[in-house]
């Protein structure tokens, strides 16, 4: 049996998923199930944990630090605004932090069997997407309770999360590959991801950042999705199509480059595992 090589065409990142859909889905389902095995509340934790974290952050940033959004007059929708940012951040952080140790954890697949190693980063991504879907459900429900019925533009939410998923996959392929050769990468990524939570406009509006630093926010891969998700789900505005389009193109390019890098370097994995 031979592993199908995704090649170097622009569609390669999508093909890695489409060709191996059943395999990826099975691995992801196993991972999600393993997380809640042996616990009393089981999958309820998937809903409870984000809700509890939202309570903490709304308290700290809404009550203690009294962060304010310029777009809104009152603080009623603050938790929803915050949560839109957190949904994006969690989706990114779950796959990015797992990536550096991913291949080593699955060393059996690299050494023994004929296995398309390049699908491995899809597994945490699917589990992250599963959690993001739950998060989106909570977000819409919260918007309904705190502000009012969800706007029609809510339907566009997947259009904003999918480019983020693609961007994250590109980064995950690079991290997964480098993580095989450089053990420190796990530490670096841990620091970077925790820093990104505060260096992206999640807890504060971009306008709160002093002018001189504001342009740096654009370097965070989270800034565009966070702001656009807020626009469509919370404020009921159409997304900024130019920003979203450019971001999607960039995400595609990053995914393609990440996958190509991974495929180029994966020959050496068996030696370092």
């Amino acid at each position, binding site marked *: 049996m031979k592993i199908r090589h995704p090649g170097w065409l622009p569609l390669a990142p999508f093909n890695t998923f489409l060709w191996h859909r059943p395999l990826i889905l099975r691995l992801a389902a196993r991972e999600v199930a393993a997380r809640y095995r042996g616990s*009393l509340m089981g999958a309820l934790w998937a809903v409870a*944990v984000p809700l509890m974290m939202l309570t903490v952050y709304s308290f700290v940033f809404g009550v203690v630090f009294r962060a304010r959004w310029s777009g809104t007059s009152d603080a009623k929708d603050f938790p929803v605004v915050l949560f839109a940012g957190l949904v994006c951040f969690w989706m990114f952080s779950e796959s990015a932090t797992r990536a550096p140790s991913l291949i080593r954890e699955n060393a059996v697949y690299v050494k023994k069997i004929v296995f398309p190693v390049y699908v491995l980063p899809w597994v945490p991504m699917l589990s992250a997407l599963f959690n993001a879907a739950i998060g989106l459900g909570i977000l819409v429900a919260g918007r309904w309770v705190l502000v009012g019925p969800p706007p029609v533009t809510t339907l566009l939410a997947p259009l904003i999360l999918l480019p983020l998923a693609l961007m994250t996959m590109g980064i995950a392929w690079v991290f997964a590959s480098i993580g095989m050769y450089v053990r420190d990468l796990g530490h670096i990524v841990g*620091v970077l991801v925790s820093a990104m939570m505060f260096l992206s406009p999640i807890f504060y509006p971009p306008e709160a950042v002093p002018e001189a630093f504001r342009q740096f926010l654009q370097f965070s891969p989270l800034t565009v999705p966070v702001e656009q998700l807020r626009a469509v789900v919370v404020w009921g505005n159409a997304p900024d199509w130019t920003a979203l389009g450019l971001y999607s193109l960039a995400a595609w390019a990053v995914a393609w480059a990440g996958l190509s890098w991974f495929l180029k370097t994966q020959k050496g994995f068996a030696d370092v595992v």
Partner: protein
Amino acid sequence: MFVLNLWRYRDFLRGAVQRELQARYRGSLLGMAWALLNPLAMIAVYAVIFSQVVSVKLPRSDSSFAYSIHLCAGVLTWGLFAQIIDRSLVMFVHNAHLVKKINFPRVCLPALAVLNSIVDFAIIFSVFIVFLLLIGRFPGLPSLALAPLIGILALFATGLGVALGTANVFFRDVEQMARVILQFWFWLTPIIYPLSILPESIGRVAAWNPLTPVMIGFQDVLVGGQWPDWASLAYPGVIALACAALGAGLFRRHAADIADEL
């Protein structure tokens, strides 16, 4: 009594702590530096965000270093507290193979969780102290108060950690729950912000948090260079002792069932 027993295993414990350190940093380019970079990076991020973007006002902002020192005093000592609990939570669950061995002294697992955390803390805290000496803000004599403060914090964490780690063997939900509660706790303790910025109603609730007086004690010593308010430390001290008794009691009563359950 089993605390005295630990003395018999001191060679084993020392070896295990050394191995853990070596294993963690072997094959890594920067080695031990990671133990420092990780918390320092977070402190830098907090410093930028909370002083520039969210603008936290400190009562004692006499110099540009004051907020950074305030952050270090809280974040580093909180790190010790959280790490002891974090490691104790999974100490039995992740070492099932050891627990099942008849001859293995189970009391060594909590001891190792605490020792490993203290080693990490000692590394980073001594760097912090050197930094204070260099910029001439070392608190002098009141720094002696750090020992009882760290003692209360470590005892509290150990008691809670052992109790939770034992409970986690029987109910795996404990781990999920504890991690969320630790996040709550971090933000509800005056670590990033001074107690004075809390609205009055919430400030009254925060006073019940046993970690509040301990953190304020650290900040008094390290930021203000004063002795802590000893009377306020009685409450966390009593809670810490109670937690230690609870942890020891739970562990002793269920030590035998742990191996069966795993």
